[in-house]
C-alpha cells in the first residue's frame, strides 16, 4: 500500500508549472510550494508537469530545480519527480559504476521490481547512457573475493563471485506468472540445503536457482526449505557474517520473499545510530511511496515501537525532512 496521496483536486500541468516557476523566480526559493506540488502528484502527473514546463519555459524542470535547491533535498525531489524507470536506471548506474562491498542497490532493483519494471529500467538505461546495464555491471564490478573461490567447486575459474551472482540477477527476464511446481520446489530446496550445509557452497546451483527461477517458484521453494529443514534459509546463510557473497544471497532471499521487511531494515539502518544515510533513506522513500511504503511504515512501527515519521523527524531536518514527511503521507497544507 502506498503512502503517497495525490491531491483531491489536481490543477492542470500548466498551472503547476507556473506555480513552480514562480517558486524559482527572484531571490530565494519557495520550497514549500515545490514540496506541496510535487509531493502530491503521481508519476503520470509529474511527467506532464515536466513536459509542460519544458514547452512553456524552454528549460528542463530538473535544470531549474538544480539551480534553486541543493543537497539531500534536491536529490530527494529529483529522484521522486523522475519516472520510475529513469529513476531505477540512475540508481543502477550509480550502484554499478561506484560499487563497493555491501552495496545492495542492484540486488534491490533486480529483485523487488517486476520483470516488466526491470525491463523498462534497462531500456531507460540504454537510452540515457548509450550502453547496456549488463555490460556496465559486468565490467565495473570487480570483486576482491577471489579468495573465496578456492573454497568452491566452481567450474568456471577466475570469476568473482559477486559478479557471477549480480549479473544473472540483472539479466534474467523471470517468468512472472503464478504457476509453480511443488515437486521441483522440494527438490531445489534440497539442493540449496546441501549446497549451504556443505559450506563449500555449490555456487553454480545456488546462482542458477536464485538467479533464474520465478518469484512465485522461489517463495514456495523457501517455504519448503523451512518446512523440511527446520530453519529459514537465511538463518543457514548466516554462517559467516563477514562473507560478502552470503550477505548478497541473504539480501536476494529477503527481497524476493518479503520485500517490505527488507525495505524496513534498510530504512531502520539508515536512521539508527549517529548520523543518517540520507542516500538510502531517500532511495527507499522515493521508490516505494507509490508502492508499499504504508506496509513498510507499519512494519517499522511494530518492530521499533515508534512511528517512522517521528524517527525521521529526529534525524532529518529542514526542507529535506518536510519533503520526506509529505511523501510519507502527512496532511497537505
Amino acid at each position, binding site marked *: 500500500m502506498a503512502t503517497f496521496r495525490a491531491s483531491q483536486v489536481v490543477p492542470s500541468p500548466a498551472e503547476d508549472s507556473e506555480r513552480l516557476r514562480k517558486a524559482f523566480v527572484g531571490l530565494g526559493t519557495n520550497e514549500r510550494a515545490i514540496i506541496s506540488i510535487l509531493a502530491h502528484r503521481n508519476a503520470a502527473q509529474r511527467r506532464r508537469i515536466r513536459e509542460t514546463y519544458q514547452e512553456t519555459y524552454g528549460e528542463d524542470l530538473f535544470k531549474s530545480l538544480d539551480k534553486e535547491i541543493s543537497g539531500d533535498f534536491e536529490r530527494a525531489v529529483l529522484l521522486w519527480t523522475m519516472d520510475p524507470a529513469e529513476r531505477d536506471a540512475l540508481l543502477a548506474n550509480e550502484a554499478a559504476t561506484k560499487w563497493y562491498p555491501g552495496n545492495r542497490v542492484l540486488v534491490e532493483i533486480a529483485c523487488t521490481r517486476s520483470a516488466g519494471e526491470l*525491463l523498462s529500467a534497462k531500456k531507460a538505461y*540504454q537510452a540515457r547512457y548509450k550502453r*547496456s546495464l549488463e*555490460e556496465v555491471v559486468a565490467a565495473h564490478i570487480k570483486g576482491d573475493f577471489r579468495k573465496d573461490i578456492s573454497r568452491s567447486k566452481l567450474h568456471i575459474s577466475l570469476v568473482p563471485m559477486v559478479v557471477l551472482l549480480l549479473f*544473472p540477477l540483472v539479466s*534474467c*527476464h*523471470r517468468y512472472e506468472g503464478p504457476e509453480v511446481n511443488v515437486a521441483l520446489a522440494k527438490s531445489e530446496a534440497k539442493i540449496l540445503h546441501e549446497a549451504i550445509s556443505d559450506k563449500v557452497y555449490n555456487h553454480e546451483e545456488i546462482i542458477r536457482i536464485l538467479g533464474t527461477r520465478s518469484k512465485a517458484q522461489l517463495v514456495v521453494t523457501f517455504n519448503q526449505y523451512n518446512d523440511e529443514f527446520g530453519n529459514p534459509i537465511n538463518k543457514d546463510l548466516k554462517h559467516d557474517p563477514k562473507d560478502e557473497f552470503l550477505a548478497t544471497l541473504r539480501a536476494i532471499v529477503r527481497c524476493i520473499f518479503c520485500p517490505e521487511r527488507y525495505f524496513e531494515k534498510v530504512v531502520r539502518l539508515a536512521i539508527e545510530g549517529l548520523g543518517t544515510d540520507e542516500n538510502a533513506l531517500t532511495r527507499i522513500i522515493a521508490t516505494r511511496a507509490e508502492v508499499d511504503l504504508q506496509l513498510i511504515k507499519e512494519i517499522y512501527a511494530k518492530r521499533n515501537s515508534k512511528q517512522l515519521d517521528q524517527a525521521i523527524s529526529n534525524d532529518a531536518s529542514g526542507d529535506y525532512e518536510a519533503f520526506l514527511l509529505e511523501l510519507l503521507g502527512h496532511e497537505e497544507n
Partner: protein
Amino acid sequence: MAEECEELTRALSGLGGLGLEEKSVAAAMGRWRRRPEMLDQFRRSFGGLFKGDDGSFERVDMDYIHLLEFELARFKNLMLQWLMHPWERDARWAHHAIHKGDSPTVLVEIACTRTPVELLGARKAYCSLFHRSLEEDVAYHISGSHSYFLVLLVSSYRYDGPNVNEEMAKLEAKVLHNAIHKAAAKGSLLSEEVLRILTTRSKPHLRETFKFYKQLFGKFIEEDLIKVPYIIETVESINSAPAYFCKVIDAALKDGVDQDSKEALTRVIVSRSNIDMLEIKGEYLKKHGTKLEDELQKFSRGVYRDALLSLVAGNE
C-alpha cells in the same frame, strides 16, 4: 508403363532432397484410376517402400513411411512457422532445442542473430508459452562444461545503438587476447573477461573488437578459442549473420545429413525471409558462384519447394 512407375518412384523418393512431389502422386492417381493392376505392378517394383509379405501381398515398410511422413511434414512445418509471430517461433525453437535434444546451436543462433528487442520478445513469449523463463530452462537442462556460456548468451540485452568506443574496443581486444592465453595455461579458456565481453558488449562494438584482434595479433579470435563449444557459431553470427546463415544452409543441402540440419533450412528461410534474405543470397552467390534459388530448385520438391522459393525470391 515402366516410365510411369519410375516417375512415381521418383516422386516418393524421400532420400536426397527435401519434400515430396505431391503433384506427381496426384497425377498418378488420376492416370491409374480403374487400372489397379498398374498400382499392383508399382508395388512389386518399388522394393524400398514395399516388402514382400509372405508371398500373398506387398506391405509397406514402416521405416520408409516414417521417412515419407517427415518429408510430407516439411511443408506443414514451414507453414506453421511462417504463420507464427517471430517471438513465438523463436521461443518454440528454443524450447525444442532444450527439451527435445536438438542441437543447442539454435540457442546461439537466436541469441546472436536476433536484435536485442527480438531476443527479449522471444524470452517473454517463452514465459507465457511454457510458464518458465528461457534462462531457467537453459540453466537447468543444459549441462556440460560451458553451459554457463549459453545461459549468459540467452540472457543478454545488448545495447542496441551504433555508438562504438574505438578505444574501448581496441583495449578489449587486448584484454581478450591476454585472458585467453593466461587461461589456456590454467586449462579453461572461458575466463571471466572473455565471458563478460562476448556476452554483454553490443554487436557493433564486438565486430570492431574482433577486427582489432586480428589486426593486433594476426589470428581470428575464433581460432584461439576453437576448443570452446559454440564459440565459432557465436563469433560468426555476431560478425555477419548472413554469412553464418549461408553456412547453415550449406549444411542443410548436403547429402545424407540428419533431420536437425535439414530442419535448419526451413528455420533459416522462414526466419530471415523478411530480414536479410537479400544479403544471404549475396553471400551464397559469392561463395558458390550459383544462385541460392537455383540450388533450392534442384534440391527440394513439391509444395515445399514452391514455398521456399516464394520466401527467398524477390527484391533483386
